[in-house]
């Protein structure tokens, strides 16, 4: 809502010295949030003067353009009194017009300096200005042509006619600041100058004159006939009429300025008056060309199959039924969507002389639904859905009649139609000390009552409680706590003391979160960089990953309104995001990238149907269970990917390329940091290389997979072959973390080391050989570690040699001669039995 300060001042006796900044700050602290404060004159340095165009010579140019060589009378503003020669490219003016001229030396918004310069074979000494060039708004027609009644200032009154050479700042009202407010849903009344001025009165403690406070004629049977079929949707409908309206009468300059400053485009006098009254009072108004109405106006819900072409030219299918669209109709059918937008057939036009004025009150919920259904937010619906003063229609209609008579030469009809009446004013009862108890401020009962009266309540005090009769423009005030806010904001939120609540005995960070932090630290310490991706994916991601049609990860939850129609699914895997990031980094020259991400994945249960429960009580256990069951399973995953080098080359030697081993190794490091020993076995799962993919388990629990990416996947994501990745269920891993680490027991008895080299078939997993050695070696074995793998001619075709270092130690004594050797032989024997291993000589 944009409010010119001069317009606010019309209804409230603000002290002269109050600046626009102070006014905006005070209103902000009352709850009308300052969005912007603009004083157009601040952006311009003069001279900016009124000029009268004396002559225009049209000069066609080689490029096909026609420019105007003008002489302009700027009075004595140029110091000579001689006409000023100016080149102008616009064509929306004629000789004799009053225009706005920027003389050399002026600086326009954007630091645009005006000087006399040679152009098109003339010396152009200045510029004839458009609204846009002056920062006054968009003007697509060309330059500003001042209306015949142009004058200053915009106080809603006609002014002295202007003369060439007059200062144009005042003529254009450029000293009048415009405050733009963001209006919260509970302050719908502030979508009007009436509401904003009332707040200004409260803020500066000065009298407010209510522009809606006017004597209106009583209803009679002579007005335009109106039937309301749906009193719930339309509790009040006031219709007034005028005849003999001059459709060609211009909108006065002061009204044009105010509408423009408030962000509305002037259209025609009739439409401008309805918009002006809406801005002034907050009551949306609709005008109908009476000549185009057939029969009575009827307010009813849409019926099946009805359509209407609204003023924006859209043909709309209307929604039938008791909660469908509320319509304004006549004998011809629908002529408008109530409180939202009128139809084309009855709109005010350049031939309209007789006008039926609608000022009605519509149900907020009904308007809200229609607005959402048709995606049709309008100035009217914006107000109705938040709640308009239901006692306002008669005054607003009367104000429209007044202006049409005054400005459009119309005659008011005696007929006044009023259907329905405003609902009774609501009362809210609260303890007088509630404001103090809720806010922690010292607020007496007297202050509470006084502040409620300031916002328009009538207050009765009965002992410890007060009852406020809420003014009709405050439909938001319904609960005792609403009264608290009204009282508190006038006392001032800056008076709320700052007191720490009593400290509870906390339990610290939950274990899962501590562990998650550790995972991040371990990976970052090991050279992996964390990224965050959107969880939005599409079928192309699954295709890029090479997932088979029946892969579980393709079973997803879908968004009804995705931002990108190609990505309507919620990710069941972090790999699409991680691999896209990997590709992005490669594309941006970060050839050596190791990255990781943790985040939720979204796994449908197939049972997603969450009940909408009541809110007047806590859900029952059954209801709560139904909610919990309907919410999809959302475990936290960890994914990582690497491409390029994990270690850099340098004076120390070659760099080391990242590989499948780094992906598995990173998972192992994470697990070890949590005190978990993972087991690894070969697997063939997309998106991994089928010969280079590891399943990662702890016992029977499969945590995920790691390994080299399939070459096709590398290609799909634009990363080099041999890039590697891993994804595990982090929640599952965290649940296995050791809460209490058992202390080790070791002794200082000497260690006995034995190395063995075993030749096995190339297809035997080393982990199997190691497991056999471990089991065969018995209790004396302290550790076994594979330290070399070798294949070659001397080993034999299809064979490989695995070299293991075994360490033996007894907990209670020094090993006897031969004991370690015997244990080693037993280990080798079991490995031979299990895997066909042959010890190398």
């Amino acid at each position, binding site marked *: 809502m944009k409010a010119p300060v001069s317009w606010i001042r019309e209804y409230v006796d603000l002290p002269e010295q109050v600046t626009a900044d102070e006014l905006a700050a005070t209103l902000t602290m009352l709850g009308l949030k300052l969005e912007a404060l603009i004083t157009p004159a601040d952006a311009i340095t003069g001279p900016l003067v009124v000029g009268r165009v004396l002559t225009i010579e049209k000069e066609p140019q080689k490029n096909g353009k026609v420019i105007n060589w003008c002489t302009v009378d700027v009075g004595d503003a140029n110091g000579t009194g001689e006409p000023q020669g100016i080149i102008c490219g616009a064509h929306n003016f004629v000789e004799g017009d009053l225009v706005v001229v920027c003389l050399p030396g002026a600086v326009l918004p954007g630091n645009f300096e005006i000087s006399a310069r040679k152009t098109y074979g003339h010396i152009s000494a200045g510029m004839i200005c458009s609204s846009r060039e002056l920062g006054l708004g968009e003007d697509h027609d060309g330059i500003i042509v001042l209306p015949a009644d142009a004058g200053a200032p915009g106080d809603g009154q006609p002014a002295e006619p202007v003369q060439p050479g007059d200062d144009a700042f005042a003529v254009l009202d450029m000293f009048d600041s415009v405050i733009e407010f963001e209006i919260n849903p509970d302050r719908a009344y502030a979508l009007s100058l009436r509401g904003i001025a009332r707040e200004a009165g409260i803020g500066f403690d000065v009298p407010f004159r209510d522009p809606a406070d006017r004597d209106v004629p009583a209803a009679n049977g002579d007005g335009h006939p109106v039937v309301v079929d749906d009193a719930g949707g339309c509790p009040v409908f006031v219709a007034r009429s005028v005849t003999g309206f001059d459709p060609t009468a211009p909108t006065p300059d002061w009204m044009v300025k105010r509408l423009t400053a408030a962000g509305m485009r002037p259209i025609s006098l009739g439409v401008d008056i309805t918009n002006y009254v809406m801005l002034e009072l907050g009551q949306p108004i609709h005008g109908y060309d009476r000549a185009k109405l057939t029969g009575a106006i009827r307010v009813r819900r849409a019926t099946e199959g009805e359509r209407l072409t609204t003023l924006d030219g859209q043909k709309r299918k209307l929604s039938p039924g008791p909660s469908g669209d509320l319509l304004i109709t006549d004998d011809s059918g629908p002529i408008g969507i109530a409180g939202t937008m009128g139809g084309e057939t009855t709109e005010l036009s350049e031939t309209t002389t007789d006008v039926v004025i609608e000022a009605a009150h519509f149900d907020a919920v009904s308007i809200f639904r229609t607005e959402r259904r048709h995606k049709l937010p309008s100035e009217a619906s914006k107000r109705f859905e938040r709640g308009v003063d239901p006692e306002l229609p008669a005054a607003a209609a009367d104000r429209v009649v007044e202006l049409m008579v005054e400005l459009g030469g119309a005659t008011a009809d005696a007929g006044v139609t009023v259907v329905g009446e405003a609902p009774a004013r609501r009362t809210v009862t609260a303890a007088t000390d509630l404001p103090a108890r809720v806010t922690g401020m010292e607020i007496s009962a007297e202050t509470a009552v006084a502040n409620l009266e300031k916002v328009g309540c009538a207050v009765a005090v009965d002992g410890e409680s007060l009852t406020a009769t809420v003014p009709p423009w405050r439909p938001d005030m319904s609960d005792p706590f609403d009264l608290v806010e009204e009282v508190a904001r006038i006392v001032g939120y800056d008076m709320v003391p*700052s007191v*720490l609540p009593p400290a509870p005995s906390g339990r610290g960070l939950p274990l899962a979160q501590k562990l998650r932090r550790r995972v991040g630290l371990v990976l970052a310490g090991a*050279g992996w960089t964390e990224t*965050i991706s*959107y969880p939005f994916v599409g079928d192309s991601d699954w295709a890029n990953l090479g997932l088979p049609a029946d892969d579980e990860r393709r079973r997803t*939850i879908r968004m009804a309104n995705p931002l990108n129609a190609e990505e309507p699914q919620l990710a069941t895997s972090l790999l699409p995001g991680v691999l896209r990031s990997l590709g992005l980094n490669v594309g941006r020259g970060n050839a050596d990238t190791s990255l990781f991400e943790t*985040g939720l994945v979204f796994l449908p249960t197939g049972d*997603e149907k*969450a009940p909408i429960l009541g809110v007047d009580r806590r859900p029952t256990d059954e209801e709560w269970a139904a909610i919990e069951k309907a919410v999809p399973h959302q475990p936290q995953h960890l994914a990582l990917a690497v491409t390029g080098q994990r270690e*850099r080359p340098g004076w120390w030697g070659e760099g080391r390329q990242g590989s499948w081993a780094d992906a598995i190794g990173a998972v192992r490091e994470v697990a070890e940091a949590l005190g978990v020993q993972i087991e690894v076995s070969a697997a063939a799962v997309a998106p991994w290389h089928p010969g280079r993919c590891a399943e990662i388990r702890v016992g029977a629990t499969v945590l995920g997979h790691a390994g080299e990416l399939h070459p096709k996947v590398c290609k799909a994501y634009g990363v080099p072959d041999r890039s590697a990745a891993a994804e595990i269920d982090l929640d599952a891993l965290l649940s296995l973390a050791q809460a209490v680490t058992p202390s080790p027991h070791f002794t200082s008895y000497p260690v006995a080391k034995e190395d063995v080299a075993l030749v096995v078939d190339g297809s035997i997993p080393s982990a199997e050989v190691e497991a056999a050695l471990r089991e065969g070696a018995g209790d004396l074995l302290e550790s076994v570690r594979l330290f070399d793998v070798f294949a070659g001619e001397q080993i034999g075709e299809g064979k490989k040699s695995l070299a293991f270092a075994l360490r033996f130690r007894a907990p209670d004594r020094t090993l006897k001669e031969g004991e370690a050797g015997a244990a080693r032989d037993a280990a080798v024997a079991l490995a031979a039995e299990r895997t066909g291993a042959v010890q190398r000589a």
Partner: protein
Amino acid sequence: MSGPNTEYDPVEVTPLRADEVEAQRDAAIAAIAAAADLEALKQVRLEHAGDRSPLALANREIGALPPQARKEAGARVGQARGLVNKALGERLAVLEAEHEERMLVEETVDVTLPTDRTVTGARHPITMMSERIADVFVAMGWEVAEGPQVEAEWLNFDALNMGADHPARTMQDTFWLEPAEAALVLRTHTSPVQARTMLTREPPIYVVCPGRVYRTDEIDATHSPVFHQVEGLVIDEGITMAHLKGSLDHFATAMFGEGITTRFRPSYFPFTEPSAEVDLVCFVCRGTGANDEGSDTCRTCRGEGWIEWGGCGVVNPRVLIACGVDPEKYTGFAFGMGIDRTLMFRHGADDMRDFFEGDVRFAQPFGIEI
């Protein structure tokens, strides 16, 4: 080896003559002094102090002397050998020191060579900011709560006093999930975690809840469909707006330093009443609105002296009722801030796209900052 010979009684044995012993001694000491390195010294030791050295041989002759002469000769040779050994020891120490010194010089390396063999990783600043915030509240004894991101419509809206026809619902452009009967959304705020907390545990409740939230905003420099919030909720007996102010002032000071507090401006949220916007004293200009040079306006707060930080208020009794908390017995407060936004102004990050695009260069400078 020759034993004592009683038959033979020479008056004098040449090697044991005083002048001869002295000459051998002096020769040995001179040779020791002349030994240029450890190898030469080793040779000198062999020649002048070894088993075949003149003094060693002379020592053997002592037995050949008549008993009355042995003592004097023994003392003479012993003294000479002692002096030689002492000289050897001293020279050895000197040469070893010289050798070590030379070795250390020879082993000099260029310590300015790069040592960046391994790459450096980093955690995402959003993660670290969430943790930093959680830590402030955990230190106050609060707990950290979490919840699902796909959430029941009832918890995201209805339970928070936003019924189906509440205009505030359109202010939070929601991702709805299919099918419509599922009544599921991507949570538009972290507030459903508050509702879940109230529904699953008894007051007193002191929780803070950082997390990821979703709205249908197209991404640009200051908007993202995925972003992060932190919410706080306190439900206890006798809780007032003053406790809210106290908690937020403490939070602001912990995050931005001494003297950085908050102010409230009246606002509207369906789940709180009274509601307020929270502004933070600009931690760059400390509320003056001027920049360092004093002439221009502060870029962080655009000269306002205040930075918009979040929203807050007293928990609406309607929310307490829907979540099973007795509004006659308990009051509470709630607040919420954007983590991404906090990151933007605290660290001068100016484009949200960098947060979520995955370019590792964004997170890397943050390292593993704590």
